[in-house]
């Protein structure tokens, strides 16, 4: 009982819920395609839940390519491709914390309804890009700062 209570206080719980993959859908060879962080259903979307008011750092591990049977398709994340919102009613089209750089550690506070994070990107297929389904993992790591 004593040990259980102590452990809960020490490691405050948080969860990341995946709401949407970063989805480019159909693409033509030689035609770049942008998925805006503001585009619902296409932009990546994460929901971080945890202690309201707690400060967290947000880090992405971003791929440079998507892959399909050994073929590559270039992915580009710009320094404004991330947005976050911890308000009671997160707004993807007008987030509270907009144009963030996903290549850098972001620091933010979890709201009463958690922290929603969106991510967009640009895909650059070559003119002679091999047809197929391309995928790549995007890892989000959230860490309490203790503040």
């Amino acid at each position: 009982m004593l040990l259980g209570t102590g452990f809960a206080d020490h490691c405050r719980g948080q969860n990341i819920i995946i709401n949407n993959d970063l989805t480019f859908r159909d693409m033509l060879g030689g035609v770049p395609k942008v998925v805006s962080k503001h585009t619902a259903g296409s932009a990546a979307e994460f929901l971080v839940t945890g202690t309201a008011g707690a400060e967290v750092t947000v880090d992405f591990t971003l791929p440079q390519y998507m892959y399909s049977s050994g073929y590559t398709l270039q992915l580009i994340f710009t320094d404004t491709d991330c947005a976050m919102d911890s308000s009671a009613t997160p707004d993807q089209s007008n987030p509270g914390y907009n144009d963030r750089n996903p290549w850098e550690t972001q620091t933010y506070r979890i709201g009463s309804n958690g922290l929603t994070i969106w991510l967009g990107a640009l895909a650059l297929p070559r003119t002679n890009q091999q047809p197929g389904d391309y995928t790549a993992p995007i890892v989000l790591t959230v860490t309490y700062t203790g503040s």
Partner: protein
Amino acid sequence: MHRKILYCIVLALSVGLIMPTDGVAQESATIQATATVISAITIIGTNNLRFGTVLPGVDKSVDKASIGFAGEWSITGNATAEITLDFTLPDSLWLADSTTGMRVGFSSTDVSYDDETGGGQLLPAGTLDPNGPGVGNLGVGGTMLIWIGGTVFPRLTQTGGDYSADVILTVAYTGS
């Protein structure tokens, strides 16, 4: 004495564990970036532009509707996709040793196309100006045929021999 030491150890451990420390907690989640690349665009030259035998001082034209003589390309790709068509045209045909040239010209109506809505080379769907970039749409079956004619202008003193030059058509999706 031993009980006292043991009591101290247990107390120290308990205090350490129940301290309301804001310790570091971390969580990771992985999503996928996904894309489906559909049909690549391909183009094949299926017939050379052939002027045949040419007499010195006598201009000779090949019409775009002249089957077997007009140049022809076959394009395949994604159905109804918009594409750009960009011709790289020679201003002369050359002997194999590249020492002697014979002028060649292409008018603004020297190219025709069929995007599956026409009747082939004799009844194409429309014409294109080969001297500027064009835009068109592949047919519902994802194909388009292109034909090109032209005119050569041999001089009266044109050196005899076999002349040739590259006529290049470059196509690309516009994304529309």
